[in-house]
């Protein structure tokens, strides 16, 4: 199967039903994408497929074939997303950090200059048990708002 991840083309041989999450972590060694709940609720495994946020624990790799995938490892390539990473640091938006890659990826799918309400809705599928969300919203607003 052919996947383009963070701008780089890969040809991989994986079972078609293998979760995209596992393909990224095991076959491509991109372990920045985390597994949380495994049922599409926590958003820790969020990546973008063709610009749309998905839970990679629920996506069979064969459904990602031929698409463009963005993971947390690809954020530093883009000045806009570098700004987002920097804002997460500056606003103390990460505590334990496990939700952070998914949070940032969901933020990447927001419309340009999102309002607080758009940020809240866009990040509703990402759970954080440390921060109380306020600092995460602050970071996204600072970087993209």
């Amino acid at each position, binding site marked *: 199967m052919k996947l383009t991840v963070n701008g780089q083309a890969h040809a991989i041989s*994986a*079972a*078609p*039903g*293998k*979760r995209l999450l*596992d393909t990224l972590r095991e076959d491509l060694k991109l372990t920045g994408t985390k597994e949380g709940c*495994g*049922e*599409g*609720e926590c*958003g820790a495994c*969020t990546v973008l497929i063709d610009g*749309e*946020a*998905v*839970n990679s*624990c*629920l*996506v*069979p790799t*064969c*459904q990602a074939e031929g698409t463009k995938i963005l993971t947390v490892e690809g954020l530093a390539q883009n000045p806009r997303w570098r700004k987002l990473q920097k804002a997460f640091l500056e606003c103390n938006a990460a505590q334990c950090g496990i939700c952070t890659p998914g949070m940032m990826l*969901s933020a990447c*799918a927001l419309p340009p200059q999102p309002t607080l309400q758009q940020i809240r*809705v*866009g990040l*509703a*599928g*990402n*759970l954080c048990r440390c921060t109380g969300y306020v600092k995460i919203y602050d970071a996204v607003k600072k970087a993209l708002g």
Partner: protein
Amino acid sequence: MGQPATDRIEIVKPQSLRHAIDWLTSAAEDGSPLTLLAGGTDIYVLLNAGVPLQGRFLDLWGLTELRPAPVVSGGSLVFGALTTYTDCIRSALVQKHLPILVQASREVGGVQIQNRGTLGGNIGNGSPAGDSLPVLAAADAQVVLASVNGERTVPLTEFYSSYRKTVRRPYELIVRVEVPLAPLQKQKQIFRKVGTRAAQAISKVVMAAVGPQIAFGSVGPTVVRARKVEAYLREGGRSLAAAQRLLKQEIHPIDDVRSTGVYRLKVAQNLLAELGTLDAHK
């Protein structure tokens, strides 16, 4: 740790709708029907939880024929089976004609689920808690099934024979959902989902109404239309208490992990007040 179930399942990927139907037909003839896989938001939750799903899967996700933008055609609002919740939210036509479907779509999971979950998947999966189902049932939606024999249309309200059992034959595929526009005209639409939280919660009770047509989810083995209440409203009935008594005769919610039957019945009865046509003092 052994190899995860998701690595072991067999998935076949058709090149076209025709190809998919041919595959379904031959698998059904062989007595080993294929399980349909759309956005995976239900099936992968089961696989991840270790539920042993047997047999082969037919991956429909790549079939662009099943994902045209919603259109108005032949007096109906027409959806391809792979229309996602995000597609519904973004569609100006859905916003205009069936705003409660937009509202329901916004309350399905987070954005990630809305991007992958499909109307055809929600219908085919047949969970009584499926959020789009009360909307589609209240709006008299028709499910179009295709097979090598052509197409047939089944009203959504007749699509379920019992809990998660549908009248879809193993060689048939849901290809479209059609919502007739005429009954929507000038009718107030209401959608209310009651869950533990506003976001990311599976419903305890859902109600959707298009004028006097009322459907409930999560209160029985399948989505249900409140026909007795509807008849009462059509006859000019205005007493909330009377409508609530009628509703009690036609829904029989159960206790489960998310709620109790008693609570669900009470909430469903209370939701009738939101129709705005019933008087609490009569």
